[in-house]
C-alpha cells in the first residue's frame, strides 16, 4: 500500500506539487492523468525517489510505502528502488543482449547464482508476455526487438528483481496501438501480483486499465476516485472539462 501525506515538491522555487494526499491500494492499477506539466510524472517519480537525481529539488511531507516513510534517513535508496520498479516512457533497453538486460537488476543487486538468474529471466520474460517471442534469441541485442517488444523487455527487466510496486511513466506513449494494447493487457494481468501506478496522457488508456484515477492540474490533485466515477460523473468541473476535452 502506498500513502502520500501532504506531499509538497519544489524544483528550486517552483512549487511543483501542492499538498498531495492519497492512498493507493495493493493489487490495483492507479492511473494519473492531467495536462503536461501538471506534476503527475513528478509525483510518480517521488514514489521511487527518482527525483533525488535532479539537483535543487526538495520535498516536504511524507510518502509511505507499507507504512514506512521512504524519505526517512534510514531508507537505502537502491533497496527502495528494488522494491519499487519503474518502466519509462520510451523503451530504454541497455546496449546489451536480451538476457543481460533482464539479468541486469539481479546482477547489480547480487541476487542469486547463475541458474537462479536464468530461471528468473525466463520467469520475468514470461511474466511480461515476451518469452515466446524471444526465447530463441536471448543472446541477441535488445535493439533488434521492435518498440513494443523493447517496452515489454523493460517491463520484464523491472519484474526480474521482484518488486511489489511497478511505476509506469507513460509506458505506451511511444508505441503503436497493437503494442499499446499488449502492454495494457499485461498491466491488467500484472495487477494480480503487483501494485501498479501509471502516468498517462491517454485518458482512454487510464479508463481502460485502471481501477482508480487521479487527476492532476497545476501541481494539485484535483480529484481522485474510482475510474468509473471519474469518467462518468466526476465531482469537479475542472475534471469534467479536462476529460471531455473542453479544457482551456
Amino acid at each position, binding site marked *: 500500500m502506498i500513502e502520500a501525506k501532504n506531499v509538497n515538491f519544489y524544483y528550486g522555487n517552483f512549487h511543483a506539487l501542492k499538498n498531495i494526499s492519497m492512498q493507493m491500494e495493493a493489487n490495483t492499477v492507479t492511473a494519473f492523468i492531467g495536462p503536461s506539466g501538471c506534476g503527475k510524472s513528478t509525483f510518480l517519480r517521488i514514489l521511487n525517489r527518482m527525483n533525488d537525481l535532479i539537483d535543487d529539488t526538495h520535498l516536504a511531507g511524507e510518502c509511505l510505502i507499507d507504512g514506512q516513510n521512504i524519505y526517512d534517513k534510514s531508507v537505502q535508496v537502491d533497496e527502495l528502488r528494488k522494491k519499487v*520498479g*519503474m518502466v519509462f516512457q520510451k523503451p530504454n533497453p541497455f546496449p546489451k543482449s536480451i538476457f543481460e538486460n533482464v539479468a541486469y537488476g539481479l546482477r547489480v543487486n547480487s541476487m542469486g547464482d547463475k541458474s537462479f538468474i536464468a530461471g528468473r529471466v525466463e520467469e520475468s520474460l514470461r511474466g511480461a508476455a515476451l518469452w515466446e517471442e524471444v526465447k530463441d534469441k536471448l543472446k541477441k541485442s535488445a535493439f533488434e526487438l521492435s518498440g513494443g517488444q523493447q517496452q515489454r523487455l523493460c517491463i520484464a527487466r523491472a519484474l526480474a528483481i521482484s518488486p511489489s510496486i511497478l511505476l509506469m511513466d507513460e509506458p505506451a506513449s511511444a508505441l503503436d496501438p497493437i503494442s499499446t494494447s499488449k502492454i495494457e493487457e499485461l498491466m491488467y494481468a500484472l495487477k494480480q501480483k503487483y501494485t501498479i501506478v501509471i502516468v498517462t496522457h491517454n485518458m482512454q488508456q487510464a479508463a481502460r486499465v485502471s481501477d482508480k484515477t487521479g487527476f492532476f492540474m497545476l501541481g494539485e490533485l484535483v480529484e481522485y476516485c474510482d475510474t468509473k466515477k471519474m469518467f462518468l460523473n466526476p465531482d469537479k468541473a475542472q475534471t469534467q472539462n479536462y476529460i471531455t476535452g473542453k479544457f482551456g
Partner: protein
Amino acid sequence: MRRLKRIAERMVEGLLTLSGGVTSLAILLIIIFLFKEGLGLFNSPNVEKGYSLCVNSSNEIVRLNPLQIKNIFDYEVSNWQEVGGADEEIMPFRFDEIFSQYSDEELGEDYALLPQRLSEVIAKHPNIIAFLPQKYTPKDEASVKVLPTKNISFADFFGGKEWLPTATPSPLYGLLPLLLGTLWVSIFAILIALPLGLGVAIYLSELATEHAGKFLKPAIELLAGIPSVVYGFFGLVVLVPLVQRSLNLPVGETAFTGSLILAIMALPTIITVAEDAMRNTPRAMREASLALGATHWQTIYKVVVPYASSGISAAVVLGVGRAIGETMAVLMVTGNAAAMPRSLFESVRTIPATIAAELGEAPAGGAHYQSLFLLGCILFVITMMVSISAEVISKRQYSKGV
C-alpha cells in the same frame, strides 16, 4: 544601379565559394610539397652526393650497401670477408689522408696530379677502400675500381634500423628507430593519460557539482592552452631531474619523461572528448539502471561507460594523434638518441623531434633535407589515418549491443 548591386553580390558569393575550398587546397598543397621533396630521397645516391667509393681492382667486391659502408668507415667491420670479399683486412681511406702522405708539390698545381696520386695509393694497397670526391676520382685506371652507387631504396628507408643522416661516406636513413620511438613514447603516454583522463571525465560528467565543474573545466581548458614549448621547458627543468633522481638513472632525458609530459598534454583532449561521450548517454538509460536498484557507480561502469565506449575510443585515438605529432616538448625532454628503443628509461627520438632538430642543419635540396620531408610525409599519413579513424569511430552509432 540594381544590376550593379546584383553583379557585386554574385562576385562576393563567388569569393565565398572559393574560400570554402581553401582548406582542401591547403591540404593538397601540403601533400604536393611534402611528397615532392620527400620522395626525392629515393633518387639520391646512397653515398654522399659528389663522392664515390673506390677499391683496388683486384678486390672481388662488387657492391656494398650503406650499412656496410658505414660499418667499414666506423672500423666496426675490419675484414673484407665480413662483407662478402676475400679474407683480408680492410683499410678505409678518407680523402683527407692523402694530404698527410703527399706534399703540396707532389700534388701539383691546383691539385692537377691528385687523381694520379690517389690511384697510386689505391694500387699500392689491395685491401684499401677509398672515399673520394668524384672530381678527383682516378678515371680509366686499371688498378682502380669505382664501386657503383645505387639510389636509396624503399627498403633502406622503411626497413633501416639506423638513422645517421650526417654519416660519411654513406648516410643512413633508417625510419624504424624514429617510428618506434614515436609510437613508444606516444603509446606509453596514452597508457598513463587514459586512466587519469577517464577518471576525470567520469568525475566531470557524473559526480562533479556545478561548482566543482565550473572550477575544473576552465582548468582543463588552460591545461590545453599552455604552449608546448612551455611544457617542454617545464619538463626539462622539473621532470628530467626528477626522473633522474627518483629512478636513479644516468640521464633524466628518457622516453619515460617524454611520455609523462605527453600524458599531461594529451589529458585535456581525452577528458573533453570522453566527457562529451558520457554526457551523451541518454538520461533514460541511467534512470532505468538506477530504477533497478543499481548504485550510481554500478550504473556508470555497467551502462554509461559501455554506452560511451565509441566516444572513449575516439578520445584515445585523438590523444594518440596529438601525442604522435607533438614536437617541442618531446624534443626538449627525450634526449634524442636515434637508436632503436629498448627500454622506457633510455633516450629516444621521435619523428617530429627529428625534423625540428635537424632541418635547420640540412642543406636545402640535399638527401638529408629530403629525408626529413619524407619523415614529414610519414607523420602526415599517420595523423591523417588517426583523425579519419577517430571520425569513423565516433560516428559509429551504438546500434548493436553485446
